[in-house]
C-alpha cells in the first residue's frame, strides 16, 4: 500500500466541516517531496568541528552548506538564499567554529533582526562550540544584557550576537571599548536580510557602512556571511545592502517533505453590503479541527490581539472535545522573554498541540516539527508566506499550509490569483542606502564614531558625494568643519536619538480610554487621517470613536462604540512636481517618475452610515500640515482612455482615478514587498501651474508616492512595471464579488452611489495599459 499523501490526510479535514456556512477553497497545490543532496566535509574544516557535527547526526553536509563554506574560506561575502529549515545557520556556524578553534584572537559578530533570534542562535552556536571542544566565549549583547556583564563581554567575548539597533546605538558609538573585538573581527554574520528593506533596510545598510568603517579603523576587514528568506532579487539586494560583490547560493541541498498548500476564502456574510466573514474565526475553526485530528498546528495572526482571540477559540473547542486546553499556547511580542523561551522549548519538544503566534515566530527560531500551519490573513509578502509555510513539515511526513484570506484587496486578489503565491517568484526587496535623510543622519553617527578626514568616503559614495553630504551637515551645524575634515562636536548621544525602525515620524500610540489598553501604534502622518478627533477608527474588527489626538505627546485616546457610522477624512493635499527624472508613454497614458513635494492638511471629515453610505454631515479638524519631500510615479491617462472609461464629468473623473489609485497601491504592495501604507496616492484633476519642463503632467493624473521622506525606491520600481500592475488591477476589480466597489477592490465609496464606478475603473486600467481601445473591449 502506498503511503498516504498530503491531500489524502488533510483534504477530508478541510471539507468535513459540519457547518452550513462552508468556506470556499479557492486554490490547492501540492509541493512535492525532494531528496537531500549532499557533499563530503571539506578537508580544511577543523576535524573537531566536523566530528561534532557528525556526532549530532549530520553525517554529510548539504551541497549549499559546503558551497557557502568554500566561498567564505576564499574570503568572499556570501548570501545563502535557500528556503526555511534548510540548515542555513550551519552555513555560518561551522566556519565560525572552525575559525575560532584555529585562531584564538579571531572574533565574530552576529546580527539578527530580533532579540529572540539572537538568543536562539546563542544556544545553538554554544552547543556546537562545546561539542567541538572550543572554549570560546559567546554572548548576546543587546538592550537586555545587564550592564554589569557588558564590560566582560566587550573585553573577552569571541562571538557577540546582537541586533542592528544595538549595533547602531550601543556598539559602534562605543567602539573604543570594543577595540580588541573589532581588531580581531573576521566574520560578520547578518541573517534574515530580507527584513532589511525599505526604510529599515536603508538604515541597516548605513549601519553596515559604519561597521566596515570602524572595523577598518581597528585594522580588520571582516567577510560577511549573510542569509535571507526567498526574495526575487537576492543578488541585487545583498549588493545594495553590503556594497560588495556577493556570492549567492540559492540551490538548496536540503530534503523537503510533501506539503499541501491551500487558500481558503471565508466568503461574504452579506454580499450586497459587501461585508465579509472574519478570517480569524475561520482560521480558529480550522485549527481546532486539525488539533482534534491529532495534527500539531501553528496559527499565524497579524496582530497581538488576534492571537488572543484565536487562542481563546481554540482552547474552548479543545475543552469541549476533552483535550487539555493548556496544550494550546500563544506566542507574541509583549510576552516576557522567559515565557517565550518556555513556549519555544515546549514546541521544540513536541509538548504542544497548538501554538498561536504573531510574526514573532516567523523568523528562524527553531520550533521543531509541526504538521500544519494556518495563516489568518495574508502576511503581506510572498517571502513571509513561504517563510511561514516552511514551518510545517520538518519531519518525513506530509504537512499542510492553509492561508485563510481576509477582506483586504491583497488577500482577495490572491484568493483568485493563487499563481502569484504558489508559482511566481517572490517579491523584490528594495533598499536605498542613499535616501538623503537617512544617509545624513548616519553620517553624523559615523562622524561621532570617527572624524572624517578630507578625501574620506562613506560606503559606496564617491569622494565628492561624501564631501557634499558632509559639507551640507556642516552648514546645518550638525558637524564641524576642521581643516578639510569633519568632526562631530556636541553634547548628544546622536545614535540613541535615531530609531532604525521607521522614518523620522513619531509613532502615535492609541489607547482605549476606558481600559487604558494600548491598541495600536500609528505613524504620525496616518494618525492625522485616521485618528483626528471625532474620527471612527477601526482596528481588528473593533470600532472606536477618537476622543483626543495629541500629536505633541504622540497619544490618541479612543472609546469603543457600536459600529453604525464611519468617517472619511477630508484633506487638502497639494502635490508639486519638483523634477522629472524619467518619463515614457505607454499605450493609453504617459507614466512619469520624479521628485515631488507633498503638502497635506486634514481639514475636516465626513460621517457616513455603514451599509447605505448615507452622508450624515461633516465636521472640522484643525491639525498642522505635513510637508513631505519624496519620490512619486504618476500616470496621466490619455484622452482616449478617459473617454473609454466614460470619465467625462469632474466628479466621475475624481472617483475613477481615486478608485484606480486605491487598487494600484494594493497591487504595488504585493509586487514591492511593502505595506500598502508605504505608498500613498494622490489624484490631481485641476489645472497645473505652467512649467518649462514638457515632461511635467498637464492634465488629470494620479500619483503614487513613497510615504517616507526622501523616498525608499518603491515608486521608482513601480513605474518600471506599471503595465503589469495596471493589468493586475483590472483583474482584481473584475474578480471581486461585490456589487459596486468595496474595501476589497476600489475602496469605500466617497461620493454619490455610482453603479458604473467599478466598471469604469476596470476599463480605465485596461485602456491605460492598452488592452482596450477607445471603441470598447479589444
Amino acid at each position, binding site marked *: 500500500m502506498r503511503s498516504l499523501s498530503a491531500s489524502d490526510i488533510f483534504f477530508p479535514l478541510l471539507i468535513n466541516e459540519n457547518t452550513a456556512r462552508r468556506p470556499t477553497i479557492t486554490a490547492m497545490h501540492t509541493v512535492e517531496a525532494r531528496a537531500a543532496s549532499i557533499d563530503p566535509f571539506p578537508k580544511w574544516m577543523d576535524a573537531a568541528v566536523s566530528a561534532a557535527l557528525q556526532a549530532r547526526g549530520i553525517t554529510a553536509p548539504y551541497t549549499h552548506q559546503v558551497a557557502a563554506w568554500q566561498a567564505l574560506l576564499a574570503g568572499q561575502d556570501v548570501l545563502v538564499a535557500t528556503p526555511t529549515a534548510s540548515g542555513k545557520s550551519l552555513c555560518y556556524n561551522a566556519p565560525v567554529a572552525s575559525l575560532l578553534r584555529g585562531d584564538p584572537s579571531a572574533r565574530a559578530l552576529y546580527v539578527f533582526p530580533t532579540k529572540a533570534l539572537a538568543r536562539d542562535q546563542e544556544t545553538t552556536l554554544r552547543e556546537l562550540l562545546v561539542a567541538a571542544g572550543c572554549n570560546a566565549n559567546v554572548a548576546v549583547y543587546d538592550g537586555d544584557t545587564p550592564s554589569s556583564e557588558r564590560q566582560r563581554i566587550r573585553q573577552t567575548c569571541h562571538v557577540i550576537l546582537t541586533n542592528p539597533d544595538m549595533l547602531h546605538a550601543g556598539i559602534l*558609538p562605543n567602539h573604543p*571599548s570594543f577595540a580588541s573585538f573589532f581588531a580581531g573581527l573576521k566574520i560578520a554574520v547578518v541573517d534574515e536580510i530580507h527584513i532589511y528593506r525599505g526604510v529599515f533596510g536603508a538604515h541597516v545598510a548605513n549601519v553596515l557602512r559604519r561597521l566596515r568603517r570602524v572595523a577598518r579603523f581597528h585594522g580588520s576587514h571582516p567577510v560577511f556571511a549573510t542569509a535571507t528568506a526567498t526574495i526575487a532579487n537576492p543578488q541585487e539586494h545583498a549588493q545594495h545592502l553590503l556594497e560588495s560583490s556577493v556570492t549567492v547560493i540559492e540551490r538548496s541541498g536540503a530534503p523537503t517533505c510533501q506539503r499541501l498548500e491551500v487558500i481558503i476564502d471565508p466568503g461574504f456574510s452579506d454580499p450586497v453590503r459587501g461585508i465579509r466573514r472574519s478570517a480569524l474565526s475561520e482560521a480558529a475553526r480550522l485549527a481546532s479541527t486539525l488539533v482534534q485530528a491529532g495534527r500539531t498546528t501553528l496559527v499565524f495572526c497579524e496582530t497581538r490581539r488576534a492571537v488572543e482571540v484565536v487562542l481563546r477559540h481554540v482552547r474552548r473547542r479543545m475543552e469541549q472535545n476533552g483535550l487539555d486546553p493548556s496544550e494550546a499556547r500563544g506566542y507574541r511580542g509583549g510576552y516576557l522573554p522567559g515565557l517565550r523561551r518556555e513556549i519555544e522549548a515546549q514546541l521544540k519538544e513536541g509538548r504542544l498541540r497548538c501554538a498561536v503566534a504573531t510574526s514573532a515566530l516567523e523568523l528562524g527560531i527553531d520550533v521543531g516539527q509541526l504538521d500544519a500551519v494556518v495563516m489568518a490573513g495574508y502576511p503581506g509578502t510572498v517571502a513571509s508566506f513561504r517563510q511561514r509555510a516552511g514551518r510545517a513539515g520538518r519531519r518525513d511526513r506530509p504537512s499542510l499550509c492553509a492561508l485563510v484570506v481576509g477582506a483586504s484587496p491583497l488577500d482577495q486578489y490572491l484568493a483568485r490569483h493563487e499563481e502569484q503565491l504558489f508559482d511566481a517568484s517572490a517579491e523584490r526587496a528594495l533598499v536605498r542606502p542613499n535616501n*538623503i535623510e537617512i544617509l545624513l543622519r548616519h553620517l553624523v553617527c559615523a562622524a561621532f564614531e570617527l572624524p572624517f578626514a578630507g578625501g574620506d568616503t562613506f560606503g559606496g559614495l564617491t569622494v565628492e558625494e561624501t564631501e557634499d553630504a558632509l559639507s551640507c551637515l556642516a552648514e546645518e*551645524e550638525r558637524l564641524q568643519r576642521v*581643516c578639510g575634515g569633519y568632526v562631530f562636536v556636541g553634547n548628544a548621544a546622536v545614535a540613541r536619538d535615531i530609531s532604525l525602525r521607521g522614518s523620522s515620524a513619531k509613532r502615535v500610540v492609541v489607547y482605549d480610554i476606558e481600559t487604558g489598553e494600548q491598541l495600536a501604534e500609528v505613524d504620525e502622518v496616518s494618525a492625522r487621517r485616521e485618528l483626528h478627533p471625532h474620527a471612527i477608527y477601526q482596528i481588528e474588527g473593533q470600532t472606536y470613536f477618537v476622543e483626543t489626538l495629541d500629536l505633541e505627546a504622540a497619544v490618541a485616546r479612543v472609546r469603543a462604540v457600536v459600529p453604525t457610522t464611519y468617517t472619511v477624512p477630508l484633506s487638502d493635499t497639494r502635490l508639486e512636481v519638483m523634477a522629472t527624472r524619467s518619463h515614457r508613454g505607454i499605450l493609453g497614458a504617459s507614466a512619469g517618475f520624479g*521628485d515631488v513635494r507633498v503638502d497635506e492638511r486634514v481639514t475636516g471629515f465626513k460621517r457616513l452610515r455603514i451599509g447605505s453610505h448615507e452622508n450624515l454631515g461633516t465636521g472640522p479638524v484643525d491639525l498642522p500640515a505635513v510637508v513631505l519631500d519624496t519620490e512619486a510615479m504618476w500616470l496621466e491617462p490619455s484622452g482616449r482612455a478617459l473617454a473609454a472609461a466614460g470619465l467625462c464629468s469632474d466628479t466621475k473623473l475624481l472617483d475613477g482615478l481615486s478608485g484606480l489609485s486605491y487598487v494600484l497601491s494594493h497591487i504595488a504592495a504585493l509586487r514591492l514587498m511593502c505595506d500598502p501604507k508605504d505608498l500613498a496616492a494622490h489624484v490631481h484633476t485641476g489645472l497645473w501651474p505652467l512649467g518649462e519642463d514638457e515632461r511635467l503632467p498637464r492634465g488629470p493624473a494620479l500619483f503614487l508616492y513613497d510615504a517616507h521622506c526622501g523616498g525608499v525606491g518603491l515608486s521608482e520600481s513601480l513605474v518600471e512595471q506599471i503595465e503589469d500592475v495596471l493589468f493586475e488591477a483590472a483583474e482584481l476589480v473584475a474578480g471581486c464579488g461585490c456589487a459596486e466597489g468595496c474595501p476589497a477592490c476600489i475602496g469605500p465609496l466617497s461620493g454619490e452611489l455610482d453603479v458604473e464606478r467599478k466598471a469604469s475603473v476596470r476599463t480605465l486600467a485596461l485602456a491605460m495599459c492598452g488592452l482596450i481601445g477607445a471603441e470598447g473591449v479589444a
Partner: protein
Amino acid sequence: MSLRNKLERRRGEDHPKAPTTPTPEPASSDKSVLLESLRQRIAQIATRQQASPKPAKELFDSQPDQGGSAIPGEEMSTPLGPVWIRRLVLSPEHCHGHAPLGGFHDFREALCALARDERLEGFDSRRTLLLDLETTGLDRGAGTLAFLIGTGWFEDDGALCVELLFCRDPLEEKAALWRLSEHMARAGALLTFNGRSFDLPLVNTRFVINQMKNPGWSLPHLDLLLAARRVFKRRLKDCSLGHLERMVLGFERHGDIPSAAIPQAYVDFLRGRDKGAMAKVLEHNVLDIVALAALGGELGKLYLDPASVEHALDHLGLACLALRAGDAQAAGSHLNRAMGTGEELTAAQAALWSAKAAARRHDHEKALELYLRAIELDAFCGPAHLALSKLYEHAQKDYARALFHAKAAADTEGEQACALRIGRLERKLAKDRVSLALCDERSDA
C-alpha cells in the same frame, strides 16, 4: 537625481543648479583668522601680565577678568602639532577655602587608605598627577571630545603646578594627548574626581581614537569621589565636587560657568561666536584642579587627625574607610571619638561597629561590652540585640538573656528566622530549668 542635487534641494533651492566645482574650503581661512586673533590677544595679555603680575591667590578670589574675553595661555609645540597651554603655580600656603594646598603632601600617608590601593603605600605624593577633563558631553562614546585636559602636580617645594591643555580645534587633541602622556609617564599615580567611571575611560577612548598608547592605564588611581562619598554620604546628600567644595572646604565660586553649559561653550568657541565663555571654562577647570588638590589634602587630614573632624557623622564615614582599608588603628580612634560625642544615634552606631570589630578579633568580652553600650545609647539598635542574642546563646550560654535580645531583634532578623531562634531558645531554657530543678532535687536529697 544625484546626491548633490538632492542636497541642494534640501538647502531650499528650488531649481537644481548645474554641478559646480566644490567651493574652496573656508575652514583653512577661518582657522588662520582665528589664530591671528588669538595671537593678538595673547600679545595683549602678555603685556598686561608683565605690567601687573597678579598674585595667584587673587586670581581665585576675584571673578574672571570682565574684559578678558581672550583665552589666556600660550601655544606649545609637540611632535604631534601645537596645543594651547595655560600654566599656573600656586604656593603650598595657598588656601582653597580654608584648606591649604600643602595639606595634600602633609597627609599623604592617608592616600593608600583613601584609594584602597596598596600600591600607594609609602608613595611620593609629588608623583601624583591630578587630572580633570572638560568634554563636549557626558556620553562616554567615541564622539565625546576632551577639548580641555586639566593636569596638576606638586613641585619639590610643595607648590601646586596646574597645566591646562586646550584644543583650539579638535585636531589639536593629538598634541594634547601627547603632552598628557608625557605627564603620565612621569607620574606614579592618578588623582581624579569621578575618574573611575568618567575621566579615565574617556581618556582611554581618546587615546584609542588617536591610535596612541595610553600610559595611564596601569597607574594606581585615587578617585576622590568614591572616597568622599564614603566619608560624607551620611551627612551630605550631594557629593558633587562643587557641593563638597562649599560644605567641606568652605569655598564659594563666583561667576563660575555651570558644568552643563560647557559643551555648548566649546561649540560656540569653534564657530567663532563666544570666546569669553571659553575663558571661563578654563578658569573653571583650574578651580577644579585646585579643589581636587585641596579636597585630597582635607580628606587626608580628617583621616589622620581625628581631632580635626567637626561632624560626628564624618567619623563614621572615615572609620568605614579605615575598616575597608584594614587600618584598625585609625578606625578605632575615629569610632572612639564618635562614641564620645553627644549624638546618641551616631555614638550607638560607632559602638556597634567597634563591637563588630572586637567580635572579629574574638574578643568576646570587649564585644559584649560594646554591644551593651550600643543598646544603652539606642535601645532599638536591632543589629546589636541580634549580636547579643547570639553571644549570650553560644559564648555565655545565658539563654534567658539571649531570649530577651532575640525578641528585641525581630525587626532586624525577620519574622521567620526570629521565630525559629526564639523557639530554639525557649526549648533550651526549658531544658535548663528541668536540669536545674533536677540538680536542686539532688542537692535536696
